[in-house]
């Protein structure tokens, strides 16, 4: 009997709970306006991928950099290509051999934990970047042939490099070489970057919730802004929340429901519609870097042949590519670096323009004859290309589909391999591919050219063209070492001409960085490279 009672009670309770849920849903205030309450002093910003860590000196994620720029102060700022302005360093000098950089540091700067910023902090930060246990990604690349930091006085440091390194000021202007608090590094150990991230910037990390939201709160003691900004003292916005919203249609929808006031990576699909939307401001900045391009493996048949690589370049309709895949919101690619990079050579743009007839002729002359199945053959070998890409690369499927169709027109068969990152990197590092995508965003020409064309990266590294050329190597070394701007510019142009005449890569499209925000947001700053929107001067009005 007791058991039966309990059973009945349980059922009744279950029923009651269901009823309560039903009742709860009727208590919804259906009349609530779409806007969720947002105070004027707080900004919510929608990001796409989200960071894995907040430690800028470890990560490779642009989103960590975007958030991190608010948390750190770079040593120098780069308001336009190749021009530098004071950041944490008030002045600096570069030795003639580009091996030693001397920085005079701003005084009375404090980390978020109250400890003072000084030369020792720079030494601790940079020494940590090159320590293998830190597993630093971008910062390790940016710090180049770093040897040591010499603390000359509390506010003077000298950075020594093993080899001449002309790209260091550019590197120091990115968020990734931001200076962190040595006290906090000691205190948090391996938890630095997830539990806490302590630096000197206008904002402090309040909470870090991966895949969801990173909340920054204004640094009330901030009084060391760079003169390139419009005001001094603490930032205007009290709080900035960075929300991680991977699905692009949803990210855009949140701007319209006012769950966010600013979004990054605006879908190009919606570009035209947003352009005519009077409530939304679109920001478009050509993204500095390499643009989207195609690497061609010179160690695997048939892309070993210069004629085949040239024919591939000629067969790709870059104008159609931009229109179809990128909805017209990009420029057809023309060279290994984007036009806004220092030293870009506009003459490279005319080379290899779309010409399928010439492409066919070139293959014909090289002995590739059309077979019965529409694919060319030579000595019994089909003109078949293995194309590897991975699913995290933006719009890789669409880009590959387009290229495959273009190459088919001239009689090439392309086999697509869309892999998870593990399989992809295993394949391209060992050269199993004929073709793979490349994209990089950075602002120094030396680093960009080095990655793609230097033979030291051809050994399972980022030079997946497996292009090895002693002359090119030497020129790239010179670009990396040359601090004189005019000489450097000529060298950069020479490298571009050289790799274009060797038909190393095919250049597809130069993307635009697209940001959108609701009217009412003013005082936005974005770096010239297009990657880092910065909200120090930003205000919101309702």
């Amino acid at each position, binding site marked *: 009997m007791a058991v039966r009672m309990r059973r009945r009670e349980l059922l009744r309770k279950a029923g009651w709970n269901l009823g309560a849920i039903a009742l709860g849903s009727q208590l919804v205030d259906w009349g609530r306006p779409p806007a969720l309450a947002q105070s004027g002093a707080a900004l919510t910003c929608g990001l796409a991928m989200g960071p894995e860590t907040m430690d800028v000196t470890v990560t490779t994620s642009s989103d960590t950099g975007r958030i991190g720029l608010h948390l750190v102060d770079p040593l120098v700022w780069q308001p336009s290509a190749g021009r530098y302005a004071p950041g944490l360093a008030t002045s600096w000098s570069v030795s003639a051999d580009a091996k030693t950089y001397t920085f005079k540091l701003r005084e009375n700067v404090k980390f978020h934990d109250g400890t003072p910023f000084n030369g020792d902090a720079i030494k601790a930060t940079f020494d940590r970047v090159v320590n293998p246990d830190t597993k630093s990604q971008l910062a390790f690349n940016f710090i180049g042939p770093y040897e040591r930091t010499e603390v000359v006085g509390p506010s003077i440091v000298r950075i020594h490099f093993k080899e001449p390194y002309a790209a260091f000021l550019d590197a120091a202007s990115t968020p990734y070489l931001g200076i962190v608090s040595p006290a906090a590094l000691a205190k948090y150990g391996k938890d630095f970057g997830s539990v806490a991230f302590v630096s000197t910037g206008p904002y402090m990390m309040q909470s870090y919730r991966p895949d969801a939201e990173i909340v920054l709160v204004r640094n009330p003691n901030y009084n060391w802004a760079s003169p390139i900004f419009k005001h001094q003292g603490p930032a205007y916005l009290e709080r900035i929340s960075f929300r991680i919203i991977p699905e*692009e*249609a949803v990210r855009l929808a949140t701007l319209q429901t006012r769950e966010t006031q600013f979004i990054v990576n605006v*879908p190009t*699909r*919606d570009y035209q*519609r947003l352009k005519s939307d009077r409530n939304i401001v679109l920001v478009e900045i050509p993204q500095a870097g390499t643009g989207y391009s195609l690497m061609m493996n010179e160690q695997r048949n048939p892309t070993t042949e210069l004629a085949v690589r040239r024919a591939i370049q000629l067969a790709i*309709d870059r104008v*159609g590519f931009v*229109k*179809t*895949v990128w909805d017209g919101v990009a420029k057809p690619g023309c060279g290994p670096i984007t036009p806004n990079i220092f030293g870009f050579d506009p003459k490279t743009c005319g080379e290899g323009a779309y010409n399928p007839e010439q492409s066919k002729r070139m293959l014909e002359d090289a002995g590739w004859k059309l077979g019965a199945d529409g694919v060319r053959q030579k000595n019994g070998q089909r003109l078949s290309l293995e194309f590897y890409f991975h*699913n*995290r690369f933006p719009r890789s*499927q*669409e880009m*590959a*589909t*387009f290229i*495959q*169709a273009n190459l088919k027109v001239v009689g090439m068969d392309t086999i*697509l*391999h*869309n*892999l*998870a990152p*593990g*399989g992809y990197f295993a394949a391209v590092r060992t050269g199993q591919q004929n073709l793979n995508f490349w994209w990089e965003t950075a602002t120094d020409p030396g680093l960009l050219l080095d990655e793609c064309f230097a033979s030291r990266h051809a050994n399972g590294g980022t030079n997946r063209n497996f292009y090895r050329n002693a002359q090119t190597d030497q020129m790239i070394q010179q670009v990396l070492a040359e601090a004189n701007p005019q000489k450097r510019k000529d060298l950069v142009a020479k490298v571009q001409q050289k790799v274009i005449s060797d038909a190393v890569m095919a250049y597809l499209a130069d993307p635009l960085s697209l940001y959108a925000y609701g009217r009412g947001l003013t005082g936005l700053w974005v770096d010239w490279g297009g990657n880092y929107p910065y909200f120090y001067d930003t205000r919101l009005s309702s």
Partner: protein
Amino acid sequence: MLGGVLLVLVIVATLLAPLLTPYNPLALSPTDRMLPPGPHHLLGTDEFGRDVLTRILFGARTSLRTGLVAVSLAIVIGVPMGLASGFYGGLIDRLLMRLVDLMLTFPGILLALVIVAILGPSLFNAMLAVGISASPTYARVVRSSVLSTKPHFFVEAAQAIGCRNWRIMLRHILPNVVAPIVVLGTLGVAGAIIAAAALSFLGLGAQPPEPEWGALLSEGRNFLLDAWWIATFPGLAIMVTVLAINLLGDGLRDVLDPQLRT
């Protein structure tokens, strides 16, 4: 009945695809990009100017085939396990059920991703994973059906006249577990088509440019506000087919399970 007719229509349309449409499912035609439905392109064109109807018709082959593969695999693995487990009982039962439990503790997505990672991403490999991870459910259902069938007197009678075990299992017990297998199987074909769509969303489904319904839907989702037809029609195709398969399953079950006949 309706289900059967619908399914036959879908299959016929699939087989006759090259005759039903003048377009090539793969060839790009940038000048015809994102045309709305009209007299030339009944269901419009996609971002590459490919005819949506053609892509759906050709995609049906892949989708139906993968659905069938997944379910057949699940049945081939799961049914013998369930039969043996339920019929023999004892140690065999306990071992098999532990194995089933272990398989069920593994998130299906883990298995799918691992198989795709090892064998390379193709829809077929993904369906292997879907099939394997669905098999424990068949084993469990079959086992419980066997347990409820075994005490019946016709089994005892068969044993009494000296029938071999495998013969009893095949001739007397299996027919009695057909109904739940059919129901699960028809749901499973539908589920596999949907699972393929989910894998496409994660970028691990059908390889481009091969048309497959889930991939069509997944790729079209970013055009919902600008070109609704790219994703909507593949979605409807999935819906109609899933509906047809399920109605057919219901019909079959009513025929196979005399108890449920009204």
